[in-house]
């Protein structure tokens, strides 16, 4: 397409967008709503993945050494733990260290007690599994080891969290697919209406010898513009919403719960919504033109 043809096609695209401005606004509106929902689901879904990953990373198995265990038995336990290949990290926490950790939280509460002498805590091993999902199985096996008093791994909570996040991710993903399909159809429909409105013009163009691409370009650019606008507008809205949500979550100060940073989230949203919006626009306009370009 020569240079003046390029200007012509963009000029026609914008003229047509302006001439059918109410329909253009309506269809951008529909794309905006669709991509806004899509973006929201992406935000939720990406953060669920993020939180799950964080929680998974924080899930530990704590093995308390039995009070009655002999030093030999404890040594044996350590050897057995070290022999396992599914543990990423093994850390011995002596009862003294455990107490030290607690001290700041207890503060003056234990003033007067000689807790150093009567330390009620036990020696423990803090373990981290290589595959977080295997925590439950590992914990069950460890219960049978010698010198093991109790095994903790946040029973139930971990299992439930894994199930809930996986379920939510599946729902979010299906919704994203459905909404994308809806967006393609809506854009295709809008371009079809513009093509219909301009069908007389297209007919005349064909009679006077316009090539198919000459006729097609303005519509493709029109679809592209609709899709791009439909992607950029929700990005601003999502940026605002996400900022609010992130600061709210931070204010709640819930353990484990932190959202992805705004910059990371916006990068992800731009990476997906902009190509998706323009892609949907181009796909929509291509889908709606075939029939009208038969000679």
């Amino acid at each position, binding site marked *: 397409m*020569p240079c*003046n*043809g390029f200007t*012509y096609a963009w000029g026609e695209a914008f003229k047509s967008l302006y001439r059918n401005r109410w329909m253009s606004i309506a269809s951008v509106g529909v794309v905006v709503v669709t991509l806004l929902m899509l973006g929201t689901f992406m935000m939720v879904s990406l953060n669920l993945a993020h939180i799950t990953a964080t929680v998974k990373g924080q899930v530990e198995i704590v093995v308390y050494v039995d009070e009655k265990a002999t030093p030999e038995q404890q040594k044996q336990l350590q050897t057995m733990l070290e022999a396992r290949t599914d543990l990423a990290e093994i850390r011995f926490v002596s009862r003294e260290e455990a107490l030290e950790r607690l001290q700041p939280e207890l503060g003056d509460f234990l003033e007067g007690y000689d807790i150093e002498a009567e330390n009620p805590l036990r020696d423990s091993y803090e373990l981290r599994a290589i595959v977080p999902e295997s925590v439950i199985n590992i914990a069950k096996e460890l219960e049978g080891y010698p010198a093991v008093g109790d095994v903790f791994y946040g029973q139930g909570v971990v299992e439930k969290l894994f199930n809930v996040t996986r379920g939510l991710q599946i729902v979010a993903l299906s919704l994203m697919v459905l909404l994308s399909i809806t967006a393609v159809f809506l854009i295709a429909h809008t371009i079809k209406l513009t093509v219909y409105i301009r069908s*007389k*013009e297209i*007919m*005349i*163009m*064909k*009679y*006077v*010898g*316009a*090539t*198919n691409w*000459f006729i097609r370009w303005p519509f493709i650019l029109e679809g592209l513009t609709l899709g791009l606008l439909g992607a950029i507008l929700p990005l601003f809205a999502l940026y605002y919403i996400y900022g609010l949500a992130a600061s709210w979550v931070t204010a709640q100060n819930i353990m484990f719960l932190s959202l992805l940073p705004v910059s990371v989230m916006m990068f992800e949203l731009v990476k997906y919504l902009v190509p998706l919006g323009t892609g949907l626009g181009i796909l929509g306009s291509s889908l709606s033109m075939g029939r009208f370009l038969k*000679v």
Partner: protein
Amino acid sequence: MSNNVTYLLIMLSKLVGRPNAMIEVKELYHRYGKDSDFVLANLNFTIKRGEFVFIVGPSGAGKSTLLKLFIREIVPSQGSISILGQDLGTMPPKQIPYLRRSIGMVFQDFRLLEDRTAFDNIAFVLRVTGASAGEITRRTSHVLDLVGLAHKAYARVCDLSGGEQQRIGLARAIANRPALIIADEPTGNLDPDTSLEIMSLLRQINLRGTTIVVATHNREIVDRFQKRVIHLEDGRIASDEQKGVYARAL
């Protein structure tokens, strides 16, 4: 001196080498659909460069079908049509736009963009061919002048009379300097005086060397113009006469 002679010889050989036939129709048959009757049957004729030809005949005789075949809007069921030596049957689809740029079309219902100005309607077809902005302005003003509507250049088409609209249609048809103009009942929606004006414009365009083919029901004008008349009846050529008249001699 000898250079000039060589030049003259080259120009002459080019003139001689140019196909003399504008349209060549051979054993042409057409039907819409495999099981329907032939709408055109066994047509054979040639229209030479620079001719002015009327196609007449009762409604349903196949006049519009024939004109649609000329611009390759439809493909003949059988037989061949050549325009300027190019066989339309074997023409690749990519070539069709370029064929149409050498043909100007005029329609009974004008087929103008009513919400745009006269100027825009003509500039529109020049833009399709990739003409520069300066060229577009020059050509558009020139053809508007030729049809006597220079003063209405910036009037919207819907504000113009039927006769004025058809003159815009004519101006649009000649904007690309086509070798051939095809008009399907160009005066079908116009009163007798306006019809005569439009046909006279076509005759003027013809005098400049453009070949003109007009399908019409306008008996008065056909009889008056004394041009070649091809009479179609039931898809066949009933008569084909130089200086013919509307009613077929029995």
